[in-house]
């Protein structure tokens, strides 16, 4: 069970949240100008990082606000949470064995 630090409510259990996948995927400025390859890249292609990963969470059973979290996808270590539009926290030095 993850303990997630909501930027508004503080640390809560994972069961209060809903996962939103990879963070910082900007919607294209002018979708009509995209070709099929670029549209597929926006819609479907994902980083799926093994290591420190920026992801979105929704505090659905709390303040109901979206925010971002930096979490390690092998150790599940959470580096920090930050509000939408804010800069992500600095990454720590990689732990032993993790990239």
């Amino acid at each position, binding site marked *: 069970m993850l303990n997630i630090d909501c930027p508004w409510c503080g640390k809560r259990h994972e069961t209060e949240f809903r*996962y939103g*996948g990879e963070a910082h995927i900007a919607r294209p400025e002018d979708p009509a100008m995209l070709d*099929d*390859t670029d*549209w*597929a890249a926006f819609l479907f292609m*994902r980083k*799926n*990082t093994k290591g420190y990963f920026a992801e979105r969470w929704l505090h659905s059973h709390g303040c109901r606000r979206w925010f971002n979290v930096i979490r390690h996808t092998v150790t*599940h270590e959470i580096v920090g949470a930050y509000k939408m539009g804010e800069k992500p926290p600095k990454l720590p030095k990689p732990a032993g064995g993790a990239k």
Partner: protein
Amino acid sequence: MVKYSIFTIARNALTGHKNWPKQWRSPEPKATYDVIIIGGGGHGLATAYYLAKEHGVRNIAVLEKGWLGGGNTARNTTIVRSNYLWDESAAIYEKSLQLWEGLSQDINYNVMLSQRGVLNLAHSLGDVREGVRRVNANRLNGVDAEWLDAEGVKDFCPIINISKSARHPVLGATLQRRGGVARHDSVAWGYARAADALGVDIIQNCEVTGIKREGGKVTGVETTRGDIAAKKIGVVAAGHSSVIAEMAGIRLPVTSHPLQALVSEPIKPVIDCVVMSGAVHVYVSQSDKGELVMGAGIDSFNSYAQRGSFHVIEHQLGACLELFPIFSRVRMMRTWGGIVDTCPDASPILSGTSVEGLYFNCGWGTGGFKATPGSGWCFAHTLANDAPHPLNTPFSLARFESGALIDEHGAAGVAH
């Protein structure tokens, strides 16, 4: 290869079973291969086997970073079925089921296929309509399927609770009688032994760390045991597909999640079929040892950790007890997680890529075990001919650009 039969058992009994030969060699990697398969799970080993057997390719290596079948092949709930909704899926999963039905004879290894019937429960009017629709679709595609009402479900699986007062009452179920379970380890070991006998080099403890390319074409791999050259590379790395793709500068539409399963203490035979419910998220069967084997839905977050959160198991067991009150005092023995590579449309990818000679077989998500023989068979064809077989043509990477997705979220059952 020593053929396994009652006579070899008898002969080896005379020497106290001390002289059985090793089932496969552990060769040093050669400098170069025609085809390298990355990933020594069921799908990778099946690919190597069918490449050698059906297409006459003999200079093949299977590179496995750990040990054979130690990933998802060892971590699934061993369910085999082919009752998928769409024509494309029905065709490839049915091909797989047909291969399952002859597999023990084909590879001379008992994979203990037990076609005990698979129920997929319906708990709402929507589920019922979807279930009946899928039964009809299956029949049109030549896949055996039946619709059972609640009483029929109770007849088929007497311990199930069909009370109307349940939170999610059982209103009926689809039944595929040819579905069932198989012995997961035997599948990996059997394919490994059969492939090895055809000259395939199976190299364990050999992690791929880079994909070497020249002019948009693969030339080989970098590994923890040195560089190995290859004309073609087939990546069958399940949850780690994205990691390998990144080495080759390719992006995939898959995300990796933990999928948890658990077994109970062994008990006497109590359930002789497989029961699955996509709506309340649980699936149950009983192993030959007597353990109840249960699976959950995926954990929502991305992970490569082979473990998940406890609340997923709690949720799953709550659903299980509502369906089977008789299990209320059974103790659970072990839980574990595997890393599944899920696709946006819950269908797999068996496809070439923008890099010449580099092929991916991934995205099987939560349901890869049942597809092991068919997946290997189709992927072997794709690698040998540099073109997909008609069975896997629809499962190309190009579908994410064309929009011809194959949405199997319903038939994929639990998870996603």
